[in-house]
């Protein structure tokens, strides 16, 4: 109850609130706080004054009709877009200071523990599955360019460590068989899993999945539901996902935010969302008579 009040306050009063110590503890339970986010492309308002927060450890779903601005929200969080106005605050741990993500460079976002997948799989086709995973651990290497040019023993040690970790992740997702396969030509379902495996390589705190079930058949979707649950359990991270497959969203998500034309529509548990008249209207259209 207390929390809800705080979040309403946050939406209304904006930034001052997080400075006071009393609220910091409450706010600390949120991993992401989106405040009044706006993203305009010329005259098109892709995201228009959206505010919400994601609680630590939950699976949060973002749904909405096509063109509602879901992916744009993701892109604003991961800094692919610079929001027109508003801000996104992030706390890697409950005790950590809130970071305004707009001050973070796009390639440093992952070092904070925020990793993402893409709508159309972005796996490197000309590398093996194992190498794809090793790329994702890029920031954990400390070898200098010189060390890498000369292949000094230090690099070898680091490579061994990363490879061991990659093997562990592959094992976890049941991909060990594919480790030496080139990504080029692997089935779509496997590639989707490889992309998820990649997010696990950099000690994620928040995993952002952009339409993880798109292009998967029913069995694969079932499997994916299991995987998402297992990831949350094993790695203890928060998961934020956009998805059109309502079955998946309703099954895995703790809370769901429905948006339409970049605006807040409804927020609540899957049951609440299913019952919400606003959501039904946005998906099915206004009734004529």
């Amino acid at each position, binding site marked *: 109850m207390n929390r809800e009040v705080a979040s309403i306050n946050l939406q209304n009063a904006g930034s001052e609130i997080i400075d006071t110590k009393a609220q910091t503890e409450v706010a600390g339970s949120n991993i992401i706080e989106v405040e009044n986010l706006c993203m305009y492309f010329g005259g098109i308002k892709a995201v228009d004054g959206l505010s919400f927060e994601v609680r630590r450890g939950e699976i949060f779903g973002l749904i909405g009709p096509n063109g509602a601005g879901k992916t744009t929200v993701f892109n604003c969080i991961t800094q692919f877009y610079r929001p027109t106005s508003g801000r996104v605050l992030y706390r890697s741990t409950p005790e950590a200071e809130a970071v305004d993500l707009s001050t973070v460079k796009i390639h440093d976002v992952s070092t904070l523990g925020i990793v993402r997948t893409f709508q159309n799989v972005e796996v490197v086709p000309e590398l093996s599955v194992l190498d794809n995973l090793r790329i994702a651990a890029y920031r954990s290497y400390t070898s200098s*360019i010189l060390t890498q040019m000369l292949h000094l023993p230090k690099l070898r040690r680091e490579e061994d460590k990363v490879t061991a970790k990659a093997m562990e992740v592959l094992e976890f997702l049941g991909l060990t068989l594919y480790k030496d396969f080139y990504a080029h030509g692997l089935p779509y379902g496997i590639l989707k899993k490889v992309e998820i495996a990649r997010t696990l390589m950099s000690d994620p705190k928040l995993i952002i999945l952009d339409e993880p079930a798109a292009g998967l058949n029913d069995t694969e979707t079932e499997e994916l539901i299991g995987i998402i649950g297992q990831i949350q359990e094993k790695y203890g991270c928060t998961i934020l996902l956009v998805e059109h497959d309502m079955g998946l969203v309703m099954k895995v998500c703790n809370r769901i935010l429905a948006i339409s034309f970049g605006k807040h529509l409804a927020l609540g548990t899957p049951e609440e969302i299913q019952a919400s008249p606003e959501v039904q209207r946005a998906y099915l259209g206004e009734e004529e008579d």
Partner: protein
Amino acid sequence: MKKNYITIAAGLMLAALPFVGLSSSVVFAMGTTLIFAVMTIGFSFLMGYGGLASLGTAGFVGVGAYIAYFVVEVYKLPISVAFLITVAISLVMGVLVGFISLRIEGIYLALLTLGLSEILRNTFVSIKATIKINTSTLKMLGMPVGELHIYLLIVAVFIVLMLITTNLINSPIGRALISVKNSPSAAQAMGISLLKHRVLAFVVSTVFAAVAGLLYMLYVRNITTSSTQLFSIITSLNILGAAVIGGAKSLWGSTFGTFLIYGIQSMFLSKIKFFVQNPAFITMLTGVLIIIIVMFYPGGLAQIAMTLKYKIKNLSKKTNVGGAL
């Protein structure tokens, strides 16, 4: 690493060439081809791994050649100083182009580097139209240096750069470059900085090109800038062609491509009367070869070699199975 031993062995064989009774003209042709191979290695790194196309190679070659001329001939300083200055200046230029590549991409970038190369070429002509180094001024460690020494220097530089590049490709940096090439967005999401890696790719290719220019100046000793093709777009296009024919993702493949474009003509065909009378015929054949390879074997000769190897392997497997039955 096994690959590195093969490279070193190849280097020793190349270094032995002048001592096994080959005519000096063939050795000289080999030397110049290796110089062009240095350019191609740098270019392959840029194109095959960085996914960036540059038509500025020729300009950077000129930078190296002019630095060699001024340092060695005009200021009478040792070759090592020329080396250091060349690397330093081309490094700065590579960083600059790398920064530009963040703003301008694809074909636009290729044309922009072409413009840059033209600026450099025009500057060279304005500074001095003919550059020449006297044999007597060439000294290394206080000892007079002849053509043979420079040839050995070329082989050494080629092998060292080959080793460094191979190692880079098989390192985290190499993989990061490939991921930047395939999807800049995904790479950034994984924490890879576009700027750093594009700059690195351009630095490698410009430094290699400039070092090649320096070696060329020391080896050939006489360049007429206004009339030579060396600093014009022809060289840039030839290097691009060599990388494509050989396969830009394979360093030895693109070295072989360089050999096809530069080496065969000067080493073998120049002995055959028909080709001496019609040098244009080779140019035409090179063109046809480039077109055929690009159309049907996008991975270049390296891809053809891999396919062949795979087929032979399968063939021997099959015969083994047949024997067992």
